[in-house]
């Protein structure tokens, strides 16, 4: 089509299309910046269209990996099996001791009239995709609104908080990791219980803000969710302090390393309805 025109007309047309497209995208951007509320339809459609392809590829990759590890790559399996059996014996003894402690804890909590620490329903999910950019810090999981996932549902792994659900389609959801520059969590320090706000930076480390100069903070101290943001349940591990410095103002500059390995996430858990449980301490 383009070759039918003279090179000059063709070139002029290309420049005209270029300018039109650039202006259109700038207009689109400014429109969204002015009105950031609500989900954009185009984004939801894209996520929904990706779902079957991502799910299929994830299943195929896991299938091949399982086949390889379970049936082909069995070098050292016998020795590993024996050492695991030993470990199971040791752990079952330990487990009995922990069970006693847990029951004691339940009794003491009842005495103190405190509620059960994990009263919410949790749904397991598999990470099926990662947004292809360094600034993104987003992953896609294979659970969506059909399974009860909602926007802002907290997402966890065994080590602590992973992030929150940003966008939901029927069978998929996009999760904003805590390292995302737009992410922020209400937190508190484990020992002093000093509240602060933990923000993503786009890098591997997070920033802990609004901790005053007079509050003692130790390197290695664990940072827990405070529940004050109304999204994440109170008392969940988020990260560990790795750097503390005096800030320019009245607040300290604190860097926190996430407890969860956000680069190698495979399985996560989504809290289906955390509201009304452990986030109750927030202001109305």
């Amino acid at each position, binding site marked *: *089509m*383009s*070759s039918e025109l003279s090179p000059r007309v*063709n070139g002029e*047309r*290309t420049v005209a*299309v*270029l300018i039109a*497209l*650039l202006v*259109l*995208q*700038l207009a*689109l*951007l400014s429109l*969204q*910046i002015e009105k*950031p509320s609500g989900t*954009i339809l*185009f*984004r939801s*459609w*894209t*996520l929904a*269209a*990706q779902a079957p*392809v*991502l799910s299929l*590829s*994830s299943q195929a*990759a896991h299938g091949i990996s399982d086949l390889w590890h379970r049936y082909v790559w069995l070098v050292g399996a016998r020795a590993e099996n024996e050492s695991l059996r030993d470990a199971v014996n040791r752990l079952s003894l330990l487990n009995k001791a922990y069970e006693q402690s847990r029951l004691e804890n339940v009794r003491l909590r009842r005495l103190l009239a405190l509620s059960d620490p994990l009263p919410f329903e949790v749904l397991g999910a598999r*990470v*099926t*995709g*990662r*947004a*292809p*950019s*360094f*600034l*993104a810090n*987003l992953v*896609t999981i294979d659970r969506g609104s059909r399974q009860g996932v909602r926007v802002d549902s907290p997402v966890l792994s065994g080590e602590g908080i992973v992030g929150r659900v*940003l*966008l939901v389609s029927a069978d998929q959801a*996009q999760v*904003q990791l805590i390292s995302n*520059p737009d992410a922020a969590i209400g937190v508190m320090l484990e020992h002093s219980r000093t509240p602060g706000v933990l923000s993503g*930076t*786009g*890098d591997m480390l997070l920033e802990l803000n609004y901790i005053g100069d007079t509050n003692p903070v130790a390197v290695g101290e664990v940072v827990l969710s405070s529940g004050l943001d109304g999204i994440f349940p109170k008392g969940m591990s988020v990260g560990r302090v790795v750097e503390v410095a005096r800030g320019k103002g009245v607040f300290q500059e604190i860097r926190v390393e996430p407890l969860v390995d956000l*680069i190698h996430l495979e399985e996560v858990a989504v809290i289906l309805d955390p509201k009304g449980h452990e986030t109750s301490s927030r202001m109305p």
Partner: protein
Amino acid sequence: MKYIFLAVSSFLAIVAQMIAGENFVLFNFLDLALLLTAYWAIYRSRTQSLFVGALTGLLLDAALGWHLGYNGFGRTLAAFVIGHSWKRFNTADQPWVRFSIFAAASCINSMSIYLLFWFMQRTASGIFLGASLLQAVITAGVGVALFAAMDTYRRIQTDRAH
């Protein structure tokens, strides 16, 4: 038909990038969408490549959860740079010229995103620029090899036809 192909190939490039990036970290530094845009700019039509750039950019923005337009803007510019430079410079059997064009287009894409972030008052991590540079080098390297292979294939096909 060609517009359906344009849309489907753009969509598949983004999905392939997501799948590959999830399983192999290095694929995060290979910009498949830019290579697809380059294919349209070099072998098809420069004007159509602008639409491919815009479309892959918008799809990428949607996949990243960003406001629509950051990548769209950058990739439209990158498509223009590739199409224009390919015509202007002698690229036949000149791998370094080709490498420079791909790398420049990738850098222009990243820089425009960085600047748009700045204009829209969003903070962009410093790591972005370093990673973008690495992405430009890897994408350009793969692009040179890929398009050299495609040229060879086309040459063989032409010879066979004669």
